[in-house]
């Protein structure tokens, strides 16, 4: 195993990828070179004319390939490496079918592509892990993920999709696990999930101010401890192929839908939705704006449909709760 490799678009050394001084100036060279178990460190901003294509190499479950953004000093401190589509590249980062398996992406910012910021071609997609990555101001989806492998192999942690011209996160085939992710200000849905196959799981996420639903199109879905606020249509829309099972626990579903166009939870097909300990307020679809057409109402008495949102500064995406917030904490007994 060789490496680690280095990428710095501002470097002016030997361009062999061996150090920050002699870093490659394009990520493309690095991703075409790296083999299983190797690490690519990158810093600065690369302006793109075309997408970075991951179409050559795979890692393994025991030895993934990692792409890690660094700060100007070359340290890993959460500073992101930027791929700037510059209103020219169709995507910032594109992953070919059955390639890019077992890759980790850490601290990467994909911005201003004319299409999706990050695009998976239709194919497997094992072991793709994304940590602290952003797709923003792109002309289509932020993240377009046509993964066709089983649930749980695409995981996003602390990632954001902001101000894109389509859905924030789009994964129409198989479910994705989102933990502490944020989808804000996109022209489509915040999270648009798998209608048919495996579970979409969203834990501790925020979906705010998107044009469509907060979380849309999901069949099997676990949505827990999320804030779903001021989206243009439903808070959560279940429309998976019937029958399905879904769970919504301890979410704050507020201010979704305008003019009677959205519900807190909208079940469009026949499923079995378990929901409890959620806080619903000011959703526009029905009288009290909470839920629509949910046949199974166990524990609905644990939900709250009046009170105070209590967000610290929701308009600026600070959804920490003040002491005035209704249902600020819940104690769920597990017998």
């Amino acid at each position, binding site marked *: 195993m060789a490496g680690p490799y280095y990428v710095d678009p501002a470097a002016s050394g030997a361009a062999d990828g061996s150090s920050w001084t002699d870093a490659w100036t394009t990520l493309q060279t690095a991703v075409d070179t790296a083999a299983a178990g190797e690490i690519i460190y990158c810093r600065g901003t690369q302006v793109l004319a075309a997408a970075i294509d991951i179409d050559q190499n795979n890692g393994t479950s025991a030895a993934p390939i990692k792409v890690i953004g660094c700060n100007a000093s070359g340290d890993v401190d959460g500073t992101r490496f930027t791929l700037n589509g510059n*209103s020219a590249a169709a995507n910032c980062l594109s992953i070919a079918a059955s390639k890019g398996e077992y890759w980790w992406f850490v601290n990467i910012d994909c911005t201003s592509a004319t299409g999706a910021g990050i695009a998976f071609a239709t194919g497997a997609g094992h072991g793709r892990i994304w940590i602290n990555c952003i797709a923003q101001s792109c002309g289509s989806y932020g993240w377009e993920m046509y993964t066709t492998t089983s649930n749980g192999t695409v995981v996003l942690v602390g990632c954001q999709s902001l101000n894109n011209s389509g859905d924030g996160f789009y994964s129409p085939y198989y479910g994705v696990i989102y933990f502490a992710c944020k989808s*804000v200000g996109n*022209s489509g849905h915040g999270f648009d999930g798998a209608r048919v196959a495996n579970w979409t799981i969203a834990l501790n996420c925020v979906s705010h101010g998107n044009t469509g639903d907060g979380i849309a199109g999901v069949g099997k879905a676990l949505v827990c401890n999320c804030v779903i606020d001021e989206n243009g249509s439903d808070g959560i829309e279940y429309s998976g192929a019937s029958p399905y099972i879904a769970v919504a626990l301890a979410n704050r579903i507020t201010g979704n839908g305008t003019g009677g166009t959205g519900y807190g939870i909208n079940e469009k097909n026949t499923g079995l939705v378990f929901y409890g300990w959620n806080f619903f307020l000011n959703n526009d679809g029905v009288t009290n704006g909470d839920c629509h057409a949910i046949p199974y109402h166990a524990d609905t008495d644990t939900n709250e449909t009046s009170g105070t949102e209590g967000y610290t500064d929701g308009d600026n995406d600070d959804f920490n709760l003040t002491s005035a917030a209704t249902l600020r904490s819940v104690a769920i007994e597990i017998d």
Partner: protein
Amino acid sequence: MPNARFTQPEFTNGQTVDGWNLTQLQPHTAIGEGVSGLIFRNCNLLNCDVPADAVVESCLHVHKSFCSHLHPDWVAHGLPECVENCEHVADTDEITIDGETVTINTYADEVV
């Protein structure tokens, strides 16, 4: 982080607009008309024509023709409804079922 897509946002002279989604439904839609000294930074300016003296920094600034077959929800926001064989047809397949041929169009938004 305001989201002003599909609407005409209101600006003031000299305003710095940072991190907004200003996506418009149709190419070359003017925004900020009559406002001077605007600075757009880290914005999504898809389909926007900004005032001539505006400064644009680190923004998406292209024009795209959206297809209503791909974005049916946007018709309610004002996207014109496309006909079956619209300009966005990217591919066409014909399948025959019980002797009857059916044409299936694949659509794509187009950068213009």
